């Protein structure tokens, strides 16, 4: 470093990078990170690239060259910034993941276990529908977390031959609620008989919200919907008895806490406890 304020014993300067700040849950986690870092007296700088991973790499290079004290990657696949992680390591800048994943060169990743969450919600759904029926899957495979969840569902469903997946649809981002709502409206019309659709499994909460709205508007409330993430709009709908019956609330605060705690360790010259640490998730059900 060559004399920037952020160096040495002075105030610590942490860069928080994500391509998905417009996602509710990412935003929530970033807020917690900022707040907790602030409590420690560190300054933070949040950078969002609006879905553009190439730009994420560039912005990461920028913060590396401005010698921040640590970098947090939020809700993104670190494989895509592998070489930037390596150059951060060279410069001695620790890179933390929050709801990302762990790769060589990083210091740590704190996350909910996507596989675990998917198991939790998928098993709940399978049980609710009595291990049989017609299922619709709403997903977004380019997102690594959602992909993992979908893969776990696929794996689980192999054991339940009576559950028939009618269709799996990709939900467009941005605009996932409107998009899933339209797709659900169309699917409801394509499957008009009672019981022709038993349930909708959504890879995250936004498509679940859209699907539930379509179901409500069509008065087909026998169909149940599940999401994952625990965003507050979904939770409110669960509480109000909408077709969304459950979601898994990721412990974003927990993840943020882990990251900040471990970061302090590192700043104090210590080691992290583990490279991959989980904040336990919790199933939220309606009454």
């Amino acid at each position, binding site marked *: 470093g060559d004399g920037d304020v952020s160096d040495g014993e002075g105030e610590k300067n942490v860069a928080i990078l994500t391509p998905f700040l417009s996602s509710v849950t990412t935003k929530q986690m970033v807020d917690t990170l900022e707040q907790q870092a602030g409590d420690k007296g560190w300054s933070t700088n949040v950078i969002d690239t609006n879905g553009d991973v190439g730009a994420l790499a560039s912005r990461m290079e920028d913060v590396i060259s401005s010698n921040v004290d640590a970098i947090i990657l939020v809700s993104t696949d670190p494989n895509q910034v592998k070489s930037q992680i390596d150059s951060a390591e060279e410069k001695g800048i620790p890179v933390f993941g929050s709801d990302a994943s762990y790769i060589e060169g990083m210091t740590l990743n704190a996350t909910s276990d996507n596989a675990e969450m998917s198991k939790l919600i998928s098993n709940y759904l399978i049980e609710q529908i009595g291990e049989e029926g017609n299922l619709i899957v709403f997903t977004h495979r380019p997102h690594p977390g959602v992909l993992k969840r979908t893969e776990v569902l696929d794996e689980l469903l192999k054991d339940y031959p009576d559950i028939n997946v009618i269709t799996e649809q990709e939900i467009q981002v941005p605009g996932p609620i409107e998009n899933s709502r339209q797709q659900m409206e169309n*699917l409801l019309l394509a499957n008009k008989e009672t019981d022709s659709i038993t349930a909708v499994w959504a890879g995250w909460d936004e498509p679940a919200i859209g699907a539930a709205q379509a179901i409500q508007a069509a008065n087909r409330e026998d169909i149940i919907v599940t999401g994952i993430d625990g965003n507050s709009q979904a939770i409110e709908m669960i509480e109000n008895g909408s077709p969304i019956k459950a979601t898994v609330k990721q412990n974003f605060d927990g993840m943020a806490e882990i990251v900040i705690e471990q970061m302090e360790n590192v700043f104090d010259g210590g080691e992290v406890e583990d490279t991959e640490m989980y904040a336990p998730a919790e199933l939220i059900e309606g009454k």
Partner: protein
Amino acid sequence: MEQTEKTLLGRDIFNKNMLSSYGTIVAGILIVIIFSILSPSSFATFDNFINITRQISLLVIIAVGATLVMTVKEFDLSIGAMASLGGVISAKLAADGMPITLAILIPIIIGFLVGLVNGYIITKFNVLSFVTTLAMGTVIGGFTFWFTGGSTIFENIPSEFKWIGQTSVIGIPLLSIVMILVVAFFWYFMTQMVVGRRLYAIGGNEKASKVSGIPIKRYKTLAFALCSMLAALTGALLASRLGSAHPTGGDGYFLNAYAAVFLGMTIVRSGVSNVFGTLFGAAVLGVLANGLTILEIPTFMQNVITGIIIIVALILQKIGREN
């Protein structure tokens, strides 16, 4: 004899017009027939027809705005961002207890004002609308993010606000009715009123229109203002339909809106943007999305099929025109 020649040719031009529309419209009808055969009980129903009108309603409204700007041979690339902003403002006002009419009206006015700014900059300094509105979209996006803190607005939204986007009147969704009103009004505006005629003249030859005494700048600015206003309205209606507003929720409309406008341009011989064409273009996109989902075609195949159908329709229509 003179007279005979006139009528003969008159009819001829009429026929050419029909032929030229041939391709895209026939393609549109074919698509509907195919879907109806493949899925008679789901696709070819009155319910689904109503459903499609609702699904395309917002796209049509924002695309009508784009049509106006394209008429004067300009682009407004900020419409997606403007729709997002309109949505969050509307949702926020409604959540803060503002009367519903105001919660819809205020974003519309803001949209109009932003459009005036776009138009003012573009006409006053004679800069390219493509890059100016692209930059304006970035500014608006940043502002929306600041306004919402990046999060979705959904708490405390009163049900009367959601009612607009979710209710039906004698079986017809209110959104579809709004769409019909917007199309009808702007069709009249563009083809029957002097202001529309002037906008088309400007698009046809700006310099000649100027020499003919049309205040070009004023009319262009009006087109930008109306376009931006309709984008904001789209956003507000979207927020009402979803009962929530996301800071990038309207961004996705931008490219689809232009796709609808451009498809619509192909159905008239002169190849200029026009309100009915835009409605038609949006309907083609809407029917494809609806039908392919009903047929449970996977998303990636839907994309491939939609793209190919559009290209084939464009080609057919040109071939139709040549014969």
